[in-house]
């Protein structure tokens, strides 16, 4: 099963390698990992996408919790949450009508053209995995020259209490 796990850590050097070392040292797989500072500059948030059976995921979360620099671990598996990732794709449509088609598709996917050259467009797309993958599939025929992907970030949905 694939799990998205968010890990709040102390924002210190070496912490990323402690976390990634935990995965590599124990043979756990990381599918994606994204890190950034939170509003509290002393704390960073890591979002890790990993997979494994229940026992493996249990070990992963326990081992993460055991790391001295880890403040909090949340597995989003059974939790209503929002997930996003961003990609930058540089496409090189050859003909004029292809160029128009690329722009049209980008619009449909609520993408933004963030750079353009004589033969290329660089498009930014944000969304969940399905959307990203669908867009990439659509772009392939036009010739993807470069491609950069952030990995996921996730956050729990705030429950709305019904009165």
């Amino acid at each position, binding site marked *: 099963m694939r799990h998205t796990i968010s890990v709040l850590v102390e924002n210190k050097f*070496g912490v990323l*390698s402690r976390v990634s070392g935990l995965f590599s040292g124990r043979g756990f797989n990381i599918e994606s990992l994204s890190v950034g500072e939170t509003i509290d500059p002393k704390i960073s948030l890591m979002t890790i996408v990993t997979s494994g059976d229940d*026992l493996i995921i249990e*070990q992963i979360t*326990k*081992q993460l*919790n055991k*790391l*001295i*620099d880890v403040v909090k671990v949340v597995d989003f598996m059974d939790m209503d949450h929002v997930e996003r990732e961003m990609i930058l794709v540089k496409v090189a449509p050859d003909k004029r009508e292809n160029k128009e088609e690329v722009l049209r598709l980008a619009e449909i996917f609520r993408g933004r053209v963030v750079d353009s050259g004589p033969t290329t467009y660089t498009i930014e797309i944000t969304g969940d995995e399905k959307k990203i993958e669908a867009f990439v599939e659509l772009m392939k025929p036009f010739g993807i020259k470069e491609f950069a992907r952030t990995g996921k970030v996730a956050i729990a949905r705030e429950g709305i209490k019904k009165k």
Partner: protein
Amino acid sequence: MKMTGAEILLECLKREGVKHIFGYPGGVVLNIFDHLYDNKDLKLILTRHEQGAVHAADGYARASGRPGVALVTSGPGATNTVTGIATAFMDSVPVIVFSGQVPTMLIGNDAFQEADIVGITRPCTKYNYLVKDVNDLARIIREAFHIATTGRPGPVLIDLPKDVTVAKGDFIWPEHVKIRSYNPTYEGNKWMIKQAAIEISKSKKPVILAGGGVISSGGHKELKELAELTSIPVTMTLMGLGSFPGTHPLSMGMPGMHGTYYANMAIQQSDLLIAVGARFDDRVTGKVDAFAPDARIVHIDIDPTSIRKNVRVDIPIVGDVKLVLREMLKVLKEDVKEQWEQVRKAWLKQINAWKKERPLSYKYDENVIKPQFVVEKLYEITKGDAIITTEVGQNQMWAAQFYKYDKPRTLLSSGGLGTMGYGFPAAIGAQLAFPDRLVIDIAGDGSIQMNIQELATAVINKLPVKVAILNNHYLGMVRQWQELFFKERYSYSNLDVVPDFVKVAEAYGAKGFRATKPGEVEGIIREAIKTKGPVFMDFIVDWKEKVFPMVSAGAPIDQMIFGDEKKEEKKKEEKVRIVT
């Protein structure tokens, strides 16, 4: 108050109550060593190898329960500590290692004697630090001692760049340590403890599996009370030997690969297994799927990651062993008023039958010394009152099987990593912690050669450590496996040249004795104990002897071989060259 980094370091160690550190000097730590020169509170024990320093600190910690401290230089000094640190890590021993580092400015530049020791030791320390600012030093040291000694104990490394030891900073001693992300759970969940108590009262064939966690939490008294109250037999892992009296009628000795027949049978047939501070090492479980097939499993451990890592667990209890056992005793005494002895009668009878059927044994021989006989004699003569350390191999297993440990912290052995060369420096550390006690390293001729240079440390510091070398001229345990599983192809397990250990001892200014006949064993042990300084006892033992019973790697633990299956093995005599 302004102090240099070196001064802060020594002041912190003093405040932590450290009296001895084990170490070895080098360029970047010279400032610290200079301060040690006329320091009255701290004595540095100069070992002859940094690995020896860390094992000695580890032995000191295991024997005394107080953290052990080592100080080494950068680069090669630091990398030499890795085996010692990994050994302490695997066995959860509180050791603090200070390594020198090149000046902050040069870090990352491949400077002379630079090594990224923080990176190298990250996977084998509980935590580690690179100190970048002298003003952080006191806090970091305080945190390091806190982390090393609380929760599941473990080694912590502090890397000290040279300039940090020279720079002046404010010395502020933090009275309390607070690390927001580090909060070990000590109290076990009450509901879970209650469930465990209910299981105990329902169970007909329970077994307690006691591990090293009982010793490090100091819960041995509670364990004994629990076992006696409920009449549950106890088996102890290698790390757990001493957590329950080995001479107690409820003791079943060690389980697992070289465990007793009765411990393994009892585990396999139990309906309830209560694991206390034990982590289910594969040497204990054998084939995991076939381990304790009919048992409900209660697992008490301070480290949540130990639970359900290797075996299924029905009742997990995260907490300090001592506190959890206390609570459990309270519940058992209040709620359940069973006549435990009656309830357990049949089960204990069965276990006693197993004990009679297959006791630990070996064949005595009049002409050649059996290694088990040496261990037995050591036990007899010391009345079980020594601190025993071991090396790794057959010697370690015989030390576990034929010496009985009634008290915690009397067997110091590298269980998790299985480090040859551990026992001797660990014995030095233990002896330093307890100058008046008898400390004996039970060694193999292979293992002792891994840190034999520490004899100098023992001699200079007048540490009367006794080393009983079970000299079989082989890497015995390797030979045993080759004999049993590799068609007797003894690939590189014959040591060919073994030094004359008596002469080695004498060369270092110690005493050496040799026994070649069983009749000489007792005399030599007594002589060694009487001798003031360190002693090597070279016992030329039956090199063909193997450790039994044995479960082959990956087999269920009740499939044991005893060594007497094929009486007359068609063995051609092999010539052993013993260089004496």
